[in-house]
């Protein structure tokens, strides 16, 4: 159900009444239908599945997730004895 890959929109156009785009997946481009993601425009990233963008990738959320991962273990490392149970707030 799931092969959804993030790509960057490089060009948007209209074909047969539908909003279509050229999406760049890191050196490989594909024509993708943006009908379901009207908020996605040139420069944005979208998750593409079966030829359609299904959602916009939220950069702020992505960065926040990575920050969270990087912070893991820092509490234990900085503290005394590495106690179990000091998980980060969810």
């Amino acid at each position: 159900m799931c092969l959804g890959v993030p790509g960057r929109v490089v060009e948007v156009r209209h074909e047969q009444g539908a909003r279509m785009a050229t999406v760049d997946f890191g050196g490989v481009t594909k024509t993708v239908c943006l009908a379901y993601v009207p908020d996605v425009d040139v420069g944005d990233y979208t998750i593409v599945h079966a030829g359609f963008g299904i959602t916009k990738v939220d950069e702020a959320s992505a960065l926040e997730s990575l920050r969270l991962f990087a912070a893991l273990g820092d509490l234990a490392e900085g503290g005394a004895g590495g106690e179990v149970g000091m998980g980060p707030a969810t």
Partner: protein
Amino acid sequence: MKYLDEFNDPALAGRLFDEIAAAATRSWAIMEVCGGQTHSIIRNGIDQLLCDRVELIHGPGCPVCVTPLEMVDRALAIAARPDVVFCSFGDMLRVPGSHSDLSSVKAAGGDVRVVYSPLDALALAAENPAKEVVFFGVGFETTAPANAMAVFQARERGLHNFSMLVSHVLVPPAIEAIMSSPMSRVQGFLAAGHVCSVMGTWQYEPLAVRHQVPIVVTGFEPLDVLDGIRRCVLQLEAGRAQVENAYPRAVRAEGNQVAQQMLARVFEVCDRQWRGIGMIAASGWRLRAEFAEFDAEQRFDVGSIAADEPARCRAGEVLQGLIKPDECECFGVECTPRTPIGAPMVSGEGACAAYSLYGRLRPEEAVGDD
């Protein structure tokens, strides 16, 4: 590649493994619903590296695996017709029907084509007005918007030679069915990230409450999967049973409302047989009556289909997470990717195929540290 490489970072993965090990004070069994997650877990060896206290149970989230046998046989019958160009996603090609598969139908002269998107099939219909172009519309909610648009566009553009054989399945009823089974050991779920990109997370709230299970919406890259597991374990340890979003960069609580509107327009809920599992009420989508003209099931009369599943195939138990693929007697012996007995051995997302492709060494053979 942006939004992929960063979520594959081995150092951050190490921290997540440690966090999970530190958090788990007892054994927990968590089911990842989605076949794409199963694939990622096995390919990256996540289950190998996870602490022993956390067990991953592989769920039925492989649409290819659960497409009812009767529907596969129907597809084969349609594909064999000389006037038909039968289009399908790649991994349906080798799924065994009762007596054959699409690959064999192609070998025998059927015009069977692999496409990346239902829009490619639509293009074929526009280019070949004298042919009947049929698309095999399988998938969960992630794929349904693409299929809905293809049917909708076919009607808008007057492409009367196009039709779709629809066999959509839905995740929430599957979770309900799994949790309602007395044999289930599942204590927490990793919900399918891209299904939720489309449908949102609100459908899972009543499930979490009713069955008192944490449901964590999870992505597919190693860090995403690990974070999903981590959050699930933390909830289990704390006795919580909530819907949590561990894939916020691609999932919002309300989901994709534009897609949901199209889905409601084109499809309606129906009962569905899940191959290996059985009938799950209100667990599928079919085309609404106004789109009947584009429904391949109605357009092509292929006679009665007598589906015949080999008794020794335990795909159903694998799909429900009751056994692991390598606990099936046929695994690796009679049933291999080369000679599949059931669908989970064929599909790219099937648990049996994942176990086979990314096979395991016996401990004494494992690669040593350099």
